[in-house]
């Protein structure tokens, strides 16, 4: 568009602009020639040029064509160029096939040959190039592309030995660079995508002595084409593949490679900064989920390109997307500092969300969430619901580490209030519905939790596994084990084989709760076969975290079986299962827990105590062992009672809804003679008995 404007401008302004042509040391005003051209008299215009500047026919024609092109008269230019037999001219310029690499001594002679042929070649090639440009402007794109291609073919044939850098004629180089850059563009506009791919590669993989800017434009153009054309290019031909070098195998790889090369050139200062390159790279790498690589790219960019706060926030997104939330939070703390940009809504929400996943960060998250709610104004008001949502989540987490009962219940009800307020603003947000379900369930408001769990399954059409698990767990907490099993079976129906693990585990536990250990063993066996098959069939293609998951799954199965056998007093089987579990996870509080229980039930109190204490050393906040130590200690006489009481109180601080902890605390109070306290604890235990799920609700996140 800009082009046609500029040519129109020069075309209409020919009163004011006087053009001159220079050749052979002569100079000539073109007004007269242009007048002849306007009359359509090409021959006369040509002959006046030939006379005025002592040119031959081809030179005069090429000059005329250029004049017409520059005047914006592309049709006229095309007519002139069509009058020259350009292919024949190229043929003449080609060196004879027999000509050999000249010996060193005749160097001066070959140089002069080069010089002559370069000048002649430059004239012909420019003519063909302008012909291609004229055709492009007339919308005859494939013809234009073919002409343009013939420029490059000709260069390769004429200078098949190459030209030493120092001797390249400027004008020739300019024409060649232009043609190299134009060709893929023409094929692209003509809709010939495979040809466009090939000419991009030809431009970048052959030696055209392009300057940095031109090469960068082609690299960017190709990367963009690879990323967005939707046409798969296939790997580059074997001819260009060097040993040990990286060869892109598909569009994404090739595009990322080119964009990274461009980024490196920016960093080295070879190129002027172009923000779009980084955006393309961001898009490509986020699609691949490789935002840690993206973060590295952002870190390499010189200071001064991005504002530091923008850079911190983007880096935080990159790291958070690959689960490196600690790093992300560290960056966000910097950018949200009161001297930086404390009201950045996205940063506040992300920081609050990260904090909401960790008990100990929750109170910090509450601060961010409140600031986010305040900042969600005007244009950003639609994010207010999100602020309330993360506030609710953070409060819920904070409640878990509250130091007093009073504080806990206050935080919990605030959390629910905040989530309810969020739901009022975003009634269709299914994540929110789920979170409310879990929150109510943890609060042991099981009927409401059940309602939300059902609503979540309806809203998502049952497409999210954790929805099914929530429903089954809530039902199990209501002691409706057979209903929970029905839900689990329905969920199994909706799940593909490899994702069934958590459901099968749940099912086994439901079977145990329904006192059918044999069915439970059967379910565990099936689950075990599944886990092992999964590891075998995906063994090589799995990444580290998936392999870790596989191990965890296998551990869970063996551990579950060990517990089951031990509850049936099949000590041998239980021990085998436990040792199998340890093969996948050598140090685990859960395994030590089971081991201790087995010792205890066989009367080996000292060994049991040792196992429990070891478990606590591995995981200081492992509640079940705290309770069990408390339970063992109270039997050891009055001197151990204070210790037992301390452990149990600590367990209750961590898990206020733990029925066993309340029960044993009651026992300790009773032993100590505090009957009223004991009665309170027993009452709490008996109320909680009815509301324990088979797996903890926090396992849902």
């Amino acid at each position, binding site marked *: 568009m800009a082009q046609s404007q500029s040519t129109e401008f020069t075309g209409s302004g020919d009163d004011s602009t006087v053009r001159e042509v220079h050749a052979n040391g002569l100079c000539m005003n073109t007004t007269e020639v242009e007048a002849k051209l306007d009359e359509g008299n090409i021959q006369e215009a040509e002959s006046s040029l030939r006379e005025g500047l002592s040119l031959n026919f081809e030179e005069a024609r090429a000059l005329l064509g250029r004049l017409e092109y520059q005047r914006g008269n592309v049709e006229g230019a095309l007519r002139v160029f069509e009058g020259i037999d350009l292919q024949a001219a190229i043929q003449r310029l080609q060196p004879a096939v027999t000509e050999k690499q000249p010996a060193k001594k005749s160097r001066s002679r070959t140089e002069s040959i080069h010089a002559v042929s370069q000048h002649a070649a430059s004239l012909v090639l420019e003519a063909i190039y302008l012909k291609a440009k004229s055709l492009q402007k007339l919308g005859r794109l494939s013809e234009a592309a073919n002409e343009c291609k013939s420029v490059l073919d000709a260069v390769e044939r004429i200078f098949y030995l190459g030209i030493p850098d120092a001797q390249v004629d400027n004008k020739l180089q300019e024409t060649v660079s232009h043609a190299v850059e134009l060709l893929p563009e023409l094929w692209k506009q003509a809709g010939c995508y495979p040809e466009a791919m090939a000419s991009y590669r030809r431009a970048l993989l052959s030696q055209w002595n392009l300057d940095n800017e031109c090469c960068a434009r082609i690299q960017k153009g190709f990367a963009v084409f690879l990323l967005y054309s939707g046409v798969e290019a296939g790997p580059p031909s074997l001819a260009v593949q060097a040993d*040990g070098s990286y060869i892109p195998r598909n569009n994404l790889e090739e595009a990322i490679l080119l964009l*990274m090369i461009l980024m490196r050139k920016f960093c080295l200062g070879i190129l002027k900064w172009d923000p779009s390159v980084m955006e*393309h790279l961001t*898009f490509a790498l986020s*699609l691949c989920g490789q*935002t840690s690589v*993206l973060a590295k790219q952002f870190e390499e960019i010189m200071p001064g390109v991005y504002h530091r706060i923008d850079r911190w926030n983007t880096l935080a997104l990159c790291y958070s997307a690959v689960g490196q939330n600690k790093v992300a939070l560290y960056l966000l703390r910097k950018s949200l500092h009161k001297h930086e940009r404390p009201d950045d809504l996205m940063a506040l*929400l992300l920081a609050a969300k990260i904090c909401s996943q960790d008990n100990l960060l929750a109170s910090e998250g509450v601060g961010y969430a409140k600031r986010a709610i305040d900042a969600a104004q005007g244009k950003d008001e639609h994010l207010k619901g*999100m602020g309330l949502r993360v506030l609710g989540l953070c409060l819920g987490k904070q409640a878990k580490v509250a130091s007093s009962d009073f504080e806990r219940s206050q935080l919990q009800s605030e959390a629910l209030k905040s989530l309810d307020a969020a739901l009022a603003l975003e009634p269709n947000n299914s994540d929110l519905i789920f979170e409310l379900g879990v929150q109510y369930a943890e609060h042991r408001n099981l009927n409401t939790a059940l309602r939300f769990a059902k609503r979540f399954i309806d809203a998502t059409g049952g497409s999210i596994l954790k929805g099914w698990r929530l429903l089954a767990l809530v039902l199990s907490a209501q002691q409706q084990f057979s209903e929970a099993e029905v839900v689990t079976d329905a969920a199994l129906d909706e799940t593909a*084989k490899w994702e069934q693990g958590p459901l099968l585990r749940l099912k086994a536990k439901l079977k145990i709760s329904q006192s059918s250990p044999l069915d439970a063993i059967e379910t565990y066996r099936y689950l075990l076969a599944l886990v092992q098959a999964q590891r075998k069939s995906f063994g090589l293609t799995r990444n580290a975290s998936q392999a870790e998951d596989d191990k965890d799954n296998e551990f869970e199965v063996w551990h579950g079986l060990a517990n089951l056998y031990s509850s049936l007093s099949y000590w041998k089987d239980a021990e085998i299962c436990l040792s199998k579990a340890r093969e996948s996870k050598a140090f685990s509080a859960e395994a030590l827990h089971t081991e201790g229980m087995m010792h205890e039930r066989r009367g080996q109190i000292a060994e049991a105590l040792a196992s429990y204490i070891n478990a606590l050393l591995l995981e200081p906040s492992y509640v079940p062992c705290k309770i069990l130590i408390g339970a063992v200690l109270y039997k050891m006489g009055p001197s151990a009672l204070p210790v037992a009481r301390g452990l149990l109180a600590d367990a209750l601080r961590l898990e206020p809804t733990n029925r066993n902890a309340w029960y044993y605390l009651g026992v300790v109070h009773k032993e100590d003679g505090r009957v009223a306290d004991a009665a309170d604890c027993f009452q709490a235990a008996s109320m909680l008995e009815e509301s324990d799920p088979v797996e903890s609700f926090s396992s849902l996140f």
Partner: protein
Amino acid sequence: MDTESPSFATPETTTPAATSPLPGSPTASSSISTTTSSSITASVSRAQTVIESLSAIITDLPSHIASSDDPAQDLLHNEKVATQISDLLRQPGSGAGDNPLCRWLYDTFQTTDPALQLVVLHHLPTIAGTYLSRVAHDRSLAGFEAVLLALYAHETTARGGQSVSVNVPDLSHPSVYHESKEPSKSNATGLHLAVISPSLEPYGTVRSTRRARIIGVALELYYSKISQMPIRSKTDFCEFCEVWAGLDGSIYDDGEEDDDAKGGKEHDQADGEAESRKEKGRKEAGRITLLWELLQPVLRILGHCLLGPVRNKELQTAASAACRSLYTRALHDINPKAILATESLLRLSKMSISAENEADPTEISQSNIIIL
């Protein structure tokens, strides 16, 4: 453009969907699956059979399509036919197992004729869009599911069930496009392997937890043929993106307006508020859970619509609107990966608009003194 892929030539063997979901359907594939003699006449007659059966479903089928030299191509690009099919697909009850249009789409895809399969893919945005927005409330969608499963099965066969991965390059290794000073010790170090589409299992039914994946894979197939898709199909897709996002992104629209338009716009805002609220209600009702396995192919397609080689004003407007909605949604989900991807797309679309007026680097230098 060559659309032949090896799987087209062989009759699909691992398509569990091929028989089960539509028991009564006349299996067009069985009679014509011998594509060994895939001469032009055979494919023309196949297309004519398909068109004939379509004429029983839609009311107004231009007669010139059946008699053309390349009926499949004409069918693909005929606006009138596309509108009728799209209208029918959006009608209530359109996705039922006994719906004749779904059966036609299914049969047409099973002909394994690449050109005819494109006709089915043309309508994938509408099928996926209508299906996903309805599936939570409406259980009678077996017709849609059969078509989607057929696409999924096709892609599974074409890939041999393999995953698609990307080896993210590391510049310390030399490549075809650059040299590196430090010699690489081993090829494996420093490369980041990213699985962009995990391996595929054959599915005979749409299990609800695999729904997003099945549609995601169908969209991957769509993306691989997207350069042959009519604009209409892509704009349909963009519209459904907005519905799926369930959020209005117009607050992030500051790309194209100039200064004098800004004042007027604020004025309009008050007037249009009631209207936009109604619109908002319609959009929010279609909101779905956007898992990455669905969102990723969606974003690739959007990238093509926004920045692909074919620049079409209408398409770009639709794609920018879709992108804004998805960006808003990404913010609401606090989904870092989606925020990064959609934000960069938004910025790029703004940049591409302002870049349209830049000088053409392939233009020759225009000086008044021409030196030979």
